């Protein structure tokens, strides 16, 4: 019985499963608030807090920036406990699904996947970075993470203006785009109340414009720059969900690399490491579904195989013509 279930899962049409799960989670996180769903304010995904009524929970980056701007006196007092508690909740949420939060739950990621689907329908080819470009671009998310932590701390210390509050949210396209799905257009404005606000909201609108062009030609364009992804990677080692590779079974055929939206070369090249998760990985599991080698790539939850590459599964997906790009 267990073997039959495993065979069924390993032969599943991952693309279809992912589409419906993404849609379900999008509805939950973008419209859940209307059904009184509240998953808290420490979610490891872009469930945007600016989506006033509809949000089913709040992206952790918003309260984190808010808390860090309280100032050192507050952070190193009793209030620091609240910051640590918030971080603990975030870690617990994150540990359950690891970076699959990006590949399956992130509303902004889902929007990018829908834009990609539109491009495919229009028959326009996608763009990819060169290895050099990729190597440099992937550093941006760490720079944004550092800025996202130090600017609020600077605000709390009186170095920066309070008008710079939640600096990453100000430039995040999630703030401007996700509320649109609940009919809230108020984030598409330029705030002229101060020079700082004006600059931050202008940057936000410029990034929004670039987001649409970028994600139209490049799969998961924004995820390369996402500081949440960087934060995820720093905590991903002890997470319950793991992406594993048995290098001895890998033939370096490159199928996994060719379907990877994030152009992660190591998924095909690295035959030494068992834990193959990279910082840009969104754990969409397309690589497993495209792998033709029995048990070469697999995803484990607390040591239990959840989904792994099989010859049968590969053939079945090929026959169905469902091979993911």
């Amino acid at each position, binding site marked *: 019985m267990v073997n039959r279930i495993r065979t069924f899962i390993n032969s599943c049409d991952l693309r279809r499963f992912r589409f419906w799960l993404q849609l379900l989670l999008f509805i939950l996180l973008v419209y859940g608030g209307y059904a009184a769903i509240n998953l808290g*304010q420490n979610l490891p995904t872009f469930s945007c807090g600016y989506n006033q009524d509809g949000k089913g929970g709040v992206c952790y980056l918003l309260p984190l920036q808010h808390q860090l701007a309280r100032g050192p006196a507050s952070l190193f007092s009793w209030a620091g406990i609240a910051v640590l508690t918030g971080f603990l909740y975030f870690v617990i949420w994150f540990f359950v699904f690891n970076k699959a939060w990006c590949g399956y739950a992130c509303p902004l990621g889902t929007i990018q996947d829908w834009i990609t689907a539109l491009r495919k329908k229009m028959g326009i080819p996608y*763009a990819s970075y060169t290895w050099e470009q990729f190597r440099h671009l992937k550093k941006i998310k760490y720079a944004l993470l550092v800025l996202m932590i130090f600017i609020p701390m600077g605000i709390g210390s009186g170095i920066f203006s309070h008008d710079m509050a939640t600096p990453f949210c100000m430039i995040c396209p999630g703030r401007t785009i996700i509320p649109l799905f609940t009919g809230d257009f108020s984030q598409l404005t*330029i705030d002229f*109340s101060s020079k700082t606000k004006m600059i931050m909201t202008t940057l936000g609108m*410029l990034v*929004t*414009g670039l987001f649409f062009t970028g994600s139209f030609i490049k799969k998961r364009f924004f995820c390369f720059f996402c500081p949440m992804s960087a934060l995820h990677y720093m905590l991903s080692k002890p997470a319950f969900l793991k992406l594993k590779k048995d290098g001895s079974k890998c033939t370096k055929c490159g199928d996994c690399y060719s379907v990877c939206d994030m152009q992660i070369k190591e998924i095909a090249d690295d035959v030494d490491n068992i834990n193959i998760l990279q910082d840009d990985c969104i754990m969409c599991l397309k690589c497993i579904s495209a792998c033709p080698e029995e048990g070469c790539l697999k995803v484990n939850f607390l040591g239990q195989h959840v989904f792994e590459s099989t010859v049968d599964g590969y053939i079945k997906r090929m026959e169905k013509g469902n091979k993911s790009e």
Partner: protein
Amino acid sequence: MNINFYRMMISFLLGMLLTNSLPASQTYWLSDIPPTKELAKKMRPSHGGLVQRGKRGMYIKRLWLREGEDPLESGYIKQNSASLVFVNPDKKISKMTFRNKDYADVAFKMPDEGFYNLFMTNREIENGVLYVSVAKNESLNHSCRAGHGDVKSKINPFYYDEAPIDIIRERRSRETFHSRITSGDVVSFTILRQGKPLPGALVKMVTQKGWAKTLKSDSEGRVAFEMIRDYYPQWHEFKRRKMEGYLAIAEYKSKDAGTYAGEKFSAVHYKVTSSGNYFPSARDYKSYLYGLLIGLFALTISGFTVYFYRRRRLKIYKEKRFG
């Protein structure tokens, strides 16, 4: 010297002279604005106005009894022995008194999230008229670290059926703990007498810049004011957090006769006050036009850049021949 100075002096003298009673026909209200700069330094802003921070960061609200109709210049009462009714967010009712150290003030801890209500009721007979004055304060306690769940149940106003007269600020449909009243917003009040809607009450809205408007409550005891826009600084001086105070005063006269404290009266004059703050409207400083233009600009430029970059790469290779 303006009239406010004289009013302040009078209220100061009255405060010095009167310890247990208040002049009947005056307007009394509860304010969280401290009377001195020294006290103001101890305060910090919160979502529910000015607060002090107590042990373990618990907010402590401090309110002062004031006299007059000017939200900015009204005098501070020095002493008063009136009994106060305190209602916490769980609707638990208890009695309090003013501390009467330097001013008639009261302080209470706010451990729970939601609205705390305080009612001061004063009854005095003057020229055969019983003046019933209720000074009401509604203070919000909210900290974002407590989360933002269950807002709708916590945001509702408290209806105090035993209040001789009450003024309720109605909540707006999308109101949250972060909502502010801004210029141009419609602020609605319901006037209640012993918990029942009171039609025909005169409700006056006064702002700290002197704008005042009086309306009569309708058959459901409701009135609605559109907050005035009265902040026109230069762009570089604009402060979107510029807070200005308002005072809502509801009055109602009835011809009920009776006896109070052994003294007869032939009419009753009810008065209830509630103060609040308002801010500049986001419409004064936010622009959709510029936002959309900048967004479209980025979209167009990046779109054309990608298009021409791809076209350039698609150019057919032309062989160059030398010699």
